[in-house]
């Protein structure tokens, strides 16, 4: 196949950039502002994450099952938004957000802690009995996370790569409904990941739009497609803050409708680092 026809094939879905030929390096200084803005975004979300985790864990410790259940998903959203940074602390990521499949003994494993351990109690066993120690541990871990992120130097490659990493999260664990398998609140996390990815994209968009306006347009279209499908499942269609129905209510057709735009976003955003010379 001639190089030209190979390129046509590769670009049929508009994904493969003509690499190495039109690369104009973005000045390092240009990255300072969006990275700083992103740190602000992360710190703001962490701040709210801490507050929400306080309410959530207090409800567990107080034995208020209904309140704890209702605060579970709204609390996690802030973590899901900032996962690219939160994941840099692997020990805390494991103790805060690991799922039962991360442990050979599953829910019986003594190392299984954090949100999903509490989710199992609140939604599967439907009790707060015996979960106070997990709540205390979660609060301590979240406070620890905030302290560590405060002092963290944000690596630009991690920040920019986070846009794609969040869409990989969605593609791998949200579309299948395995993230929140007991509470079926996956759409909250889904939205959190998308918000976090979109934030990074928006911050760096000014640095790539002149170079590749088609890329920006495509990414915006696919974010819009995901948002449109998500909007079908809001508890109140007119209120973006109203939260989501159970993932069990999402039709097979709509689960598939997520996959196309999510995969396209994962592919496109995987080139963002390259576009910024990172």
């Amino acid at each position, binding site marked *: *196949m001639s*190089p030209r*026809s*190979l*390129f*046509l*094939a*590769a670009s*049929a*879905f508009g*994904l*493969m*950039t003509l*690499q*190495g030929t039109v*690369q104009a*390096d973005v000045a*390092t200084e*240009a*990255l*300072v*502002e969006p*990275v*700083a*803005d992103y*740190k*602000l*975004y992360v*710190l*703001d979300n962490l*701040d709210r994450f801490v507050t929400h985790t306080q309410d959530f864990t207090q409800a567990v410790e107080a034995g208020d099952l209904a309140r704890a259940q209702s605060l579970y998903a709204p609390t996690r959203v802030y973590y899901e938004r900032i996962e690219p940074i939160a994941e840099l602390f692997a020990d805390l990521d494991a103790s805060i957000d690991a799922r039962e499949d991360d442990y050979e003994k599953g829910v019986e494993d003594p190392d299984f802690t954090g949100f999903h351990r509490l989710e199992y109690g609140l939604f599967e066993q439907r009790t707060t009995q015996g979960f106070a120690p997990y709540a205390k541990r979660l609060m301590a871990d979240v406070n620890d996370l905030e302290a560590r992120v*405060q*002092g*963290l*130097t*944000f*690596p*630009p490659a991690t920040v920019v790569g986070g846009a794609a990493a969040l869409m990989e999260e969605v593609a791998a664990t949200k579309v299948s409904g395995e993230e929140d398998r007991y509470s079926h609140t996956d759409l909250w996390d889904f939205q959190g990941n998308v918000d976090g990815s979109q934030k990074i994209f928006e911050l760096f968009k*000014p*640095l790539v739009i002149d170079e590749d306006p088609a890329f920006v347009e495509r990414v915006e279209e*696919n974010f819009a497609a995901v948002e449109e499908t998500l909007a079908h499942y809001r508890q109140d269609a007119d209120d973006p803050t109203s939260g989501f129905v159970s993932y069990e209510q999402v039709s097979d057709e709509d689960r*598939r*409708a997520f*996959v*196309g*735009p999510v*995969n*396209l976003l*994962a*592919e496109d955003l*995987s*080139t963002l*680092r*390259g576009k910024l*010379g*990172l």
Partner: protein
Amino acid sequence: MSDRSDNMPRCPFSLDRRRFLQGLGATGTGIAMAGLSTSAWARSCPADDMPDTDPEVTSAPTSTATTDAYPFHGTHQQGIVTPRPANGMIVACDVLARDRDGLEQLLRTLTERIAFLTRGGTYPQGDPRYPPADSGILGPTIAPDGLTVTVSLGASLFDARFGLADVKPRHLQRMTGFPNDALDPSRCHGDMSLQICAHTHDTTVHALRDILKHTPGGLMVRWKQEGTVPVMSPSDTGPTPSARNYLGFRDGTANPDTADTALMDALVWTGHDSEEPAWTRGGSYQVVRLIRNFVERWDRAPLAEQEAIFGRCKDSGAPLAGGTEYDIPDYSDDPDGQVTPLDAHIRLANPRTPGFEKHRILRRPFNYSNAVEANGQLDMGLLFIVYQADLEAGFITVQKRLNGEPLEEYIKPVGGGYFFTLPGVIDENDFLGRGLLEAAASHA
């Protein structure tokens, strides 16, 4: 990039600015700028050259067949009458395209990728700061390795999404269970099947990953089954005997001769039926069935019973009446099934009676071996793939005759689907499914 006049990062949140500055304090700007200069990323990976000294590497298997290539362009797709290689897989997909234009884009991309992959060649080398153009699992330059990729469409693609209902192949339908089936919905049906075959397994995996990489908004894999066929030594004295399935019997005996083009036109290629849409000419109906074999139980069945169930001698593949694998069974002097039981597999599948010729199907199966069942038994069986000009006259008629056969005690179909294999791509201006889309457009 910004028209702001101050140097402070903008703070769009209700965050205490002092706390923010405190947070940044530990690291100045809180941003790692070290190592950002692009020159730090200069690669020094050498080209894939031959070493001067004796290499200390794990030995790789070698083959001279890696340069085998089947021409992509032609009246029919490859992978049907093409000689069956040692490895094959079926990948059933859902099409994610949202309209007919998206479907056309998908089919054009598939055409381009398959044309490249089956010919072989070198991937473009890109900027290392980007993801590479290819998975690289076969290296920067790929050999064709006998690769074929055969694209077929399921009945579900002809639903309301793309407006194709009026031009659906006449016999294409959703597979329904037969009495012995225990269909697992997660391994059934699909808008599209890709049959990927090659000499080596890694070549099929590479082709699949390449195709999926190029169609992220177009295809979602629904299920996949890989399989193999044992490699035979060519016979010095006659035709190469058929390969065996996981029940130990030769599978492929008495298959229609793929070199006989008139026979293929009659039995395999669609288009002679005037009630079929004209665009189907040169295509074929593909049936895929995942047929689990209960091999532990089978291995504990007496040999004579195994042979009676199939109607053939296990070692030679010859009919029970004698001769060789290549002798056509003749039941005319065995009307009561004294030699070959009336319910033997091969006798039910083809009674060799006048007029039955039109029900013959072209088999192109692979053996599969998956994981282990909860009971500790091996999950293995037959990736049954057949092609025929007429789905009703072919597989469905034959399978109805097989319903209730004694072999059922040892097998359980668990998945699969019915598909229509698109006609071939004639030349570089053509693409897979062009005829279908043009027919749909002229119907609108």
